[in-house]
């Protein structure tokens, strides 16, 4: 149990999971949650339709035709029944004292039609009266890798994920669960919360903030019902761990009758931005920026200053990398005199440069002891806070294909640096357009915990965000 006594603790650490109303031929929810059994928990089905039961039993899942018959305490239920039935299922869950449920069922207030609104109101009234932990409706529910609970069968089932993620959108929740895996960023707990009519983003955020297994929190949010509660919870969370907020959708200003100058200037998005800064949150604009800064936080040392050593391979790239980092607000200073003296001892200035940014391919020429020597010099340089290294996806990658050991040797050198140095390392594999090969070697970076980015701009953006957070 990771937040003992918290009202959401059982739901977020389930041992007994029930899927209600899953249907063939795919039985997507039972399939998504097969991991529960692998992790030593109990997975049950509740389905009254005799046509569906045979398929469920064939999967080796015990089916009940009444929720009341499910043995033991239910920690988490995923409900996928038609909307008219949803309030009845909720009634049964409340009667059974279940610890929580997510309603995949949609067709509620989001339809803006009378029946949907009425059914939703009915559920809200029941859940509130019973203090029931209802996630959604109109959501994908929970993804809890350690417990084997998933909303997508391809998401990782690791036991030691460190990142919590909350999403108002089901799509962004699913995408994040997959994109994070591809980037070696593993999740501890994740919730897609949909209409959030009972448990809202603040309730879920509070749990992740208190959860000791979650070291970093990310979220996709479009709007909140209770702004003050969100402000207070976000501030509390940011005091405990990095929180990345990807705010989607610019609220329409609408026709606001204002009499003061201040009110006319206070656009909703400006207030959101200010609120997030006030809390100390890391703000992002899209999925890429979100995963990028997370990847850096998870894999890198905490930055203490803006001064970059830029280790590029060639002259043209040394200019591009400098533009990108400088535009992101980072600094590219001169090296110390000592560094120049040390680099001057071996640097090949014909076709190269040992000014910062370095143009080093001609000097390194595939010799890892030379790369290591350069890394040691910049590590010792008092003018430098962080190191960015370009690995050329167009040139070096061609030789790695012929000789995979050359890539391993490069990564070992970078990993050794990362293990001994306090200065954050950020790696750029650019230009990353020969996608198939780049994807084939991604695992090698993940294994070694080396944060790698497909462009200078994305690397610089991640560094700037992490630094702003770390020095706030």
């Amino acid at each position, binding site marked *: 149990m990771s937040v003992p006594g918290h009202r959401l603790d059982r739901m977020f650490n389930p041992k007994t999971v029930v899927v209600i109303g899953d249907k063939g031929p795919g039985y997507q929810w039972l399939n998504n949650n097969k991991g529960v059994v692998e992790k030593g928990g109990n997975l049950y089905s509740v389905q009254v339709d005799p046509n569906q039961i045979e398929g469920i039993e064939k999967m080796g899942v015990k089916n009940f035709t009444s929720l009341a018959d499910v043995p033991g305490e239910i920690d988490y239920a995923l409900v996928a029944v038609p909307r008219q039935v949803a309030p009845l299922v909720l009634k049964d869950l409340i009667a059974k004292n279940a610890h929580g449920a997510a309603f995949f069922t949609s067709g509620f207030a989001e339809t803006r039609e009378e029946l949907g609104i009425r059914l939703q109101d009915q559920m809200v009234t029941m859940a509130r009266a019973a203090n029931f932990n209802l996630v959604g409706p109109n959501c994908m529910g929970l993804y809890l890798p350690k417990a084997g609970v998933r909303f997508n069968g391809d998401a990782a089932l690791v036991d030691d994920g460190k990142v919590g993620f909350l999403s108002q959108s089901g799509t962004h929740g699913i995408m994040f669960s997959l994109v994070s895996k591809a980037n070696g960023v593993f999740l501890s707990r994740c919730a897609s919360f949909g209409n959030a009519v009972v448990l809202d983003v603040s309730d879920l955020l509070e749990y992740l903030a208190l959860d000791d297994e979650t070291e970093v929190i990310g979220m996709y949010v479009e*709007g*909140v019902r209770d*702004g*003050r509660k969100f*402000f207070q919870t976000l501030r509390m969370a940011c005091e405990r761990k990095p929180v990345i907020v990807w705010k989607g959708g610019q*609220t329409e200003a609408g026709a606001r009758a*204002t*009499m*003061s*100058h*201040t*009110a006319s*200037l*206070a656009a*909703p998005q*400006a*207030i959101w*931005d*200010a*609120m997030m*800064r*006030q809390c100390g949150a890391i703000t992002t604009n899209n999925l890429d920026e979100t995963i990028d800064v997370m990847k850096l936080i998870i894999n890198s040392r905490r930055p203490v200053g803006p001064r970059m050593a830029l280790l590029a391979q060639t002259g043209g790239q040394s200019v591009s990398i400098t533009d990108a980092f400088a535009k992101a607000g980072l600094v590219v200073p001169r090296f110390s005199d000592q560094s120049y003296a040390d680099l001057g001892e071996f640097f090949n200035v014909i076709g190269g440069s040992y000014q910062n940014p370095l143009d080093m391919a001609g000097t390194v020429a595939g010799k890892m002891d030379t790369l290591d020597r350069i890394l040691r010099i910049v590590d010792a340089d008092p003018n430098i806070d962080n190191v960015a290294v370009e690995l050329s996806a167009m040139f070096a990658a061609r030789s790695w294909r012929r000789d995979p050991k050359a890539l391993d040797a490069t990564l070992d050198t970078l990993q050794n640096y990362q293990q001994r140095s306090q200065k954050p390392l950020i790696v750029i594999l650019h230009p990353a357009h020969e996608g198939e090969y780049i994807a084939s070697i991604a695992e090698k970076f993940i294994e070694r915990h080396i944060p790698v980015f497909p462009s200078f701009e994305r690397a610089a953006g991640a560094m700037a965000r992490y630094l702003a957070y770390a020095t706030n």
Partner: protein
Amino acid sequence: MTFQSVLTQARSEHRTLLNEVEAKQVLGEAGVSVTVTTLATSADEAAKQAEAAGYPVVLKVVSPDIAHKSDAGGVKLNLNNTAEVKAAYAEIVASCTKAVPNANIVGVAVQHMAPQGTEVIIGMTTDAQFGPVMMFGLGGIMVEVLKDVSFRLVPLTDRDANQMINEIKGRPILDGVRGQPASDIAALKSTIVKVAKFVEDHPEVRELDLNPVFAYPDGAIAVDARIIVAEA
């Protein structure tokens, strides 16, 4: 007059807008530095109050029906003696009556004309999602055209107020550029924090503008103020 009595008065008149005299009075009570402003209902009264305020003085129309005082000819600056004050009083009443024929002209606000400082705006509004929010920005065209302003949710810490000031793009102007004197950042910060505290203490306040506040090398003072309260 306390905030409560000003509020009661406004509500009895079905007003949500507190006039400049009222707004400055309640803010002054909350420790916010404002130019002392009194309400005159005759030219003679205005002349008497001008003597007390000290020349030069400024006269501004007080009317719930006139939002843009300058446009209606309701503002007279840099008045230096009794004769000028009396004449200005009459001119204000005449031109406002002409500009807004049925306007209820309560009187004219009299105040000492503060020396020009660096103009800033300090304001507050109530956001539909997040409640009371403070705003800070440079005055004049910086706020009108560039919307170079920063926001923070109430309640505010000193750190929040500091960040509000440092966040605006025009921040170097407050350090003094091209021979202009630097502004007293501590005084601005303290004004922001006091206004935020005032707002926190009085949830009836929905919107508030101190526009402009004059910032000096030593101190800062609000020379105009308006407050909008929630309907009863």
